[in-house]
């Protein structure tokens, strides 16, 4: 049967009368048109192309004809040639979103057939589909609702097509991933269509394709978020300051759980602001994705991939401000499992002597900030982590016979600062745990060692720690440290190094508006922390007891403390637990206060 026996079907919409030609006629005509290009006869083919290149406002007949031509092409994929029909293939990829659902379906079928038929079409077809992951652009303006509606029509079809292709060609996901990466690179940093693109990527990760290539997709997304993080407009000049003070200043104006003001961001260039907003949206998308992983019991495996990306991209990039909160949120969703694993892995990095020094310092800074800020972490767990840190530092002290030399013992000093920082947040709750009591003795030996970490660590941390240690009745260290409200000192700068790891507190409050509303419920703000010196700052409540101080200290009373004459005659056995008990009783509401006798009568 030769093609000449069939009437030549004219493809232009005006002349074509659908009733005259059967589907089979059309199929053969299409095949003839495709084949004729190779002989140099391009008339039919040009007409075919005209049908394909319809405008958005084409009439109903033209659209119907397009649909039938597409269906004919689907069954004639063996006749399509990569070289001779290049422009036809290009026409297929340009206007996917601007047509009706039935046309979209016909086009999708064509793409699937084409991809499955021969290996050389796989990449172009995947590309045709993936291009629709970004936000569509239209020739005329469309409203937001129309845009959303269009995306809701297009994206599920694209996903379904990708799955069908992966089913027919099992190795397709690997090709898909490189195409996804290519298309992602083409999206500019400030282009808002990255949000739609990442949304689709995360949906793919959650699907059967994600079972094969999910880890690569997640790494791609985190890499892009890291890029945005580094470019975002947060001014880092505030970063040097110990953020406890920064928080107090800002949080006095807001209530707990409120959204954190983005005032810091607005000071900077508008370009940076745009990027921050984009990053904010991406983070929220990722949070939702983590929640859905949690619901489908996948959070464990996703956490492993997240941690690997964290180790590769974030851990050694000290300037990231927000990306680490992805880990924080994942941990908050599953504290017993992921929460514990994150801390343990960070601690392992710090303790492994094979790892590079900067990585270890960064890991312990992350650990300290995480243990302090993670509201979902129980005090017993924090105490056990601290115990291991204290043991490590004590061991180091034991083997080291050096004086204060910040540059030589950076890892040690960063470990000490981590311990002090966590205790600033958690001292009250940890001190109540009996098995940690002995650790305070080890800690005291570390602090009074020749290496003198109290002199080297960040002054604001040290002064806060000493204040709380004194108030908690733990111990007094002989030298008085006068810092004059300094945030940093020369020695701390020396141990922090060029990267300023001495002032690195990565989980300080997230400044992105939308993301922080997700983080805040699980976040320990400084204003919420119950310190040992009490909320009202009333130091007279806890009289000083010298517990483990040096012989000198008894002769050098601190100026602040009022020594009760009765107290002087007391024995020096540790009574701090008793003291706290009376403190507690004194603070009890009047209704259940046991007696009305003055507080002093409780003292023996």
């Amino acid at each position: 049967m030769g093609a000449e026996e069939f009437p030549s079907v004219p493809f232009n919409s005006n002349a074509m009368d659908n009733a005259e030609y059967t589907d089979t006629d059309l199929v053969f005509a299409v095949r003839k048109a495709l084949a004729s290009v190779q002989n140099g006869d391009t008339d039919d083919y040009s007409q075919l192309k005209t049908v394909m290149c319809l405008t958005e406002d084409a009439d109903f007949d033209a659209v119907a004809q397009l649909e039938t031509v597409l269906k004919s092409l689907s069954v004639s994929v063996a006749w399509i040639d990569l070289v001779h029909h290049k422009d036809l293939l290009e026409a297929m990829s340009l206007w996917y979103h601007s047509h009706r659902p039935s046309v979209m379906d016909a086009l999708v079928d064509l793409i699937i057939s084409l991809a499955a038929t021969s290996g050389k079409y796989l990449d172009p077809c995947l590309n045709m589909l993936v291009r629709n992951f970004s936000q569509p652009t239209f020739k005329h303006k469309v409203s937001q609702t129309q845009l959303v509606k269009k995306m809701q029509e297009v994206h599920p079809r694209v996903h379904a097509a990708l799955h069908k292709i992966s089913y027919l060609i099992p190795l397709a996901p690997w090709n898909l991933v490189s195409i996804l990466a290519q298309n992602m690179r083409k999206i500019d940093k400030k282009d808002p269509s990255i949000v739609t693109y990442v949304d689709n990527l995360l949906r793919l990760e959650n699907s059967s394709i994600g079972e094969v290539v999910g880890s690569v997709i997640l790494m791609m997304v985190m890499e892009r978020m890291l890029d945005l993080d580094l470019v975002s407009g947060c001014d880092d000049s505030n970063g040097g300051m110990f953020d406890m003070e920064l928080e107090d200043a800002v949080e006095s104006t807001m209530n707990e759980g409120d959204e954190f003001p983005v005032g810091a961001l607005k000071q900077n260039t508008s370009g940076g602001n745009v990027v921050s907003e984009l990053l904010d949206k991406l983070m929220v998308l990722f949070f939702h994705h983590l929640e859905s992983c949690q619901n489908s019991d996948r959070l464990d495996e996703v956490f492993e991939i997240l941690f690997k990306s964290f180790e590769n991209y974030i851990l050694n990039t000290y300037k990231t401000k927000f990306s680490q909160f992805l880990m924080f949120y994942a941990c908050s969703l599953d504290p017993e499992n992921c929460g514990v694993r994150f801390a343990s892995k960070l601690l392992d990095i710090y303790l492994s002597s094979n790892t590079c020094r900067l990585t270890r310092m960064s890991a312990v800074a992350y650990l300290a900030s995480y243990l302090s800020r993670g509201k979902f972490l129980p005090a017993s767990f924090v105490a056990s982590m601290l115990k291991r840190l204290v043991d490590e530092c004590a061991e180091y002290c034991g083997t080291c016979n050096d004086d204060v030399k910040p540059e030589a013992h950076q890892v040690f000093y960063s470990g000490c600062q981590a311990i002090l920082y966590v205790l600033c947040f958690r001292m009250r709750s940890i001190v109540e745990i009996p098995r940690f009591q002995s650790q305070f003795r080890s800690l005291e030996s570390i602090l009074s060692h020749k290496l003198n970490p109290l002199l080297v660590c960040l002054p604001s941390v040290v002064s806060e720690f000493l204040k709380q240690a004194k108030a908690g009745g733990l111990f007094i260290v002989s030298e008085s440290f006068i810092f004059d409200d300094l945030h940093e000192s020369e020695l701390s700068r020396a141990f922090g190094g060029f990267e300023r790891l001495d002032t690195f507190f990565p989980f300080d409050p997230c400044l992105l508006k939308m993301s922080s509303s997700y983080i805040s419920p699980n976040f320990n703000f400084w204003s919420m922390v119950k310190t040992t010196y009490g909320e009202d700052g009333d130091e007279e409540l806890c009289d000083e007891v010298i517990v483990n101080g040096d012989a000198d200290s008894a002769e050098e009373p601190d100026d602040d403390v009022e020594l009760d004459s009765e107290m002087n005659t007391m024995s020096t056995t540790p009574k701090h637990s008793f003291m706290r008990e009376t403190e507690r009783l004194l603070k009890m509401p009047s209704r259940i206060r046991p007696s009305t006798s003055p507080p002093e009568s409780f003292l023996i």
Partner: protein
Amino acid sequence: MEGLKLSEAELMIFIHPSQSRNVFQGICRELSSLLFQYNETFDGVLLAYDATVKSKQAKILTGLHPYFGVRVNTRLLLFDPKPKSFVEGKIAKISPESIHVIVLGFSAAVITDVDIREEFKYRVRDGEGSFVSRSHKRHALKLGTMLRLQVQSFDEEVMHIAGSLLPENTGCVKWLEKKSEEALPTDRDHKRRKLA
């Protein structure tokens, strides 16, 4: 099924110094990066491997990065369907123009309508399409059928097989095996008659 072969090879694998603490992991990593790709040296697609370190002595390369070369004895499972050989796979999609088959779970094979012999006719039954033999009504090719096909060509880059159902001994594997079993007693009868 043809096209699968087990080879033994003595390889020299170069490991980056960062992996010197766990050399076996480094070896597995290198070999794993070759999986499901066509390798000219091995003359086939590597599907699986089994490696044992031959000698603990490794020579360090001079150069910018001091890679060291470890001698490894390996057994490799390779897939190399030559033209005119026969492979088997599961039918994933049937349409009047083509049959799509998945071979060994990773390789896609396509048989276009011109390569399906005249014996088979496309029929639609209960909304499902299938190819049914005109001469043997029981011989049907449906979704999920294990199909034996002849390889026409193998695209090594995408692991794509172009197949053909023209030869007589291609088609549904179950039916073909049953047919060859039934053929045996008649052979015996034929021999008896011959002797007699």
